[in-house]
């Protein structure tokens, strides 16, 4: 704990790197997965292919992907871009499965009502169906953000920056104090980000509080 308090400046600098590496992929993944998921929802074959591809991507271990990516895209090994691309792939893989499922869950009468009052399919998707799928999306985003923060810290064993460097440094110089400081910093970071996303979700879905509190979606957390 003392280490953390005496190294606040360093902690902040590392936190910025850590956040950059873990959250840019979340944003990029969201930007890719939502349109893609909405597009493939009604197309059976495309949806199946996407689901299968996503599962396979998700199965590739992150450390392995950090190392293999430079072979496929023109980046240097141990470059930050590899981490961002790899984590974007994971984020997209997870969300692209969640989006169609969330859209499936939109009640048919709601869709019909929207059509009846004159919404064209595209506008209906943007204004009715996607907003209704926000709770599921938020659940997915929380998992992805926390997982990414943890994955970036693992990346320090192959020389990727961020708060994980305190683990490798602390281990090499036998300073458990520094490792504990790193654990605390990453834990707090993850909890803060998780809470922020949760509150963002609440702000975006004021209607969920009107009809009573719905049960948290534990299944999506798995």
């Amino acid at each position: 704990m003392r280490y953390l308090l005496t190294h606040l400046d360093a902690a902040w600098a590392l936190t910025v790197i850590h956040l950059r590496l873990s959250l840019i992929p979340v944003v990029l993944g969201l930007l890719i997965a939502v349109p893609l998921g909405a597009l493939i929802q009604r197309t059976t074959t495309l949806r199946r292919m996407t689901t299968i591809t996503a599962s396979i991507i998700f199965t590739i271990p992150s450390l392995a992907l950090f190392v293999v990516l430079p072979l496929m895209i023109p980046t240097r090994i141990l470059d930050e871009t590899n981490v961002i691309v790899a984590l974007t792939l994971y984020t997209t893989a997870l969300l692209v499965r969640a989006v169609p499922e969330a859209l499936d869950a939109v009640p048919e009468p709601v869709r019909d009502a929207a059509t009846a009052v004159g919404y064209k399919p595209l506008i209906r998707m943007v204004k009715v169906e996607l907003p209704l799928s926000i709770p599921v999306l938020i659940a997915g985003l929380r998992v992805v953000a926390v997982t990414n923060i943890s994955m970036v810290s693992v990346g320090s064993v192959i020389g990727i920056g961020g708060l994980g460097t305190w683990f490798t440094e602390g281990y090499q110089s036998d300073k458990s104090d520094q490792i504990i400081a790193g654990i605390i910093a990453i834990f707090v970071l993850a909890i803060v980000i998780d809470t922020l996303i949760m509150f963002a979700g609440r702000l975006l879905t004021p209607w969920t509080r009107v009809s009573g509190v719905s049960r948290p979606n534990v299944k999506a957390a798995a």
Partner: protein
Amino acid sequence: MNFLQQALSYIFTAANWGGPAGLAARIGEHLQYTVVAVLVSALIAVPIGMLIGHTGRGTFLVVTGVNALRALPTLGVLLLGVLLWGLGLVPPTVALMLLGIPPLLAGTYAGIANVDRAVVDAARSMGMTESRVLLRVEVPNALPLILGGLRTATLQIVATATIAAYASLGGLGRYLIDGIKVRQFYLALVGALMVTALALILDAALAFAVWTSVPGTGRLRRMPQPLLGDEVVLESGTLAQATSAARYERGDPSPTVEG
């Protein structure tokens, strides 16, 4: 692509498989860490998930517990564990449990809690005791979700067991980390490829387990499955029926999971 060729030729050279630091030994170590961590995670998470799912009490504990465990960095816990307890099976097991418990706990809890209340009430009204309701009715119906949790847990653990090598504990991560340290990237690639293969194999095996565990006539027929083509629905429908007839001789067991 040069790295890839080097890596593949390394993997397909028999001499690299034997010995105490060969591929076979590394795979053995890697699997050992994985299996031990998955088992311990399951022993902790499944009973707790069953209890909370059955009683409905402590749901908050599942949600916060799962999030908190996920937020703890595995690498930090592993390295701290090694500094505190020395090398051995304990540090990697504890560290990897952090990854295994959340999906198992969430899966078990969600599986049990989502069993159709009518089925549970029917079981009770037939005079089943609470423990029988849990073990004979709720658990079989929740099995696909529990095994789904096991699948996620195994996948995460086998992928992350790579970091054990950083603390001189061996496993397939040895190749990855050594390869990067000495700038022999084809070696790192060997590690990456082997870990990926191992993860894919384990995942496929568990996916099959989940598929076979679907109770009764199966989710395939009950749930609308727009992602399956008609042929597949037909095929799996008849298949599921056949297996269900064999397993449930007393007839259709109950349209439950995620009902």
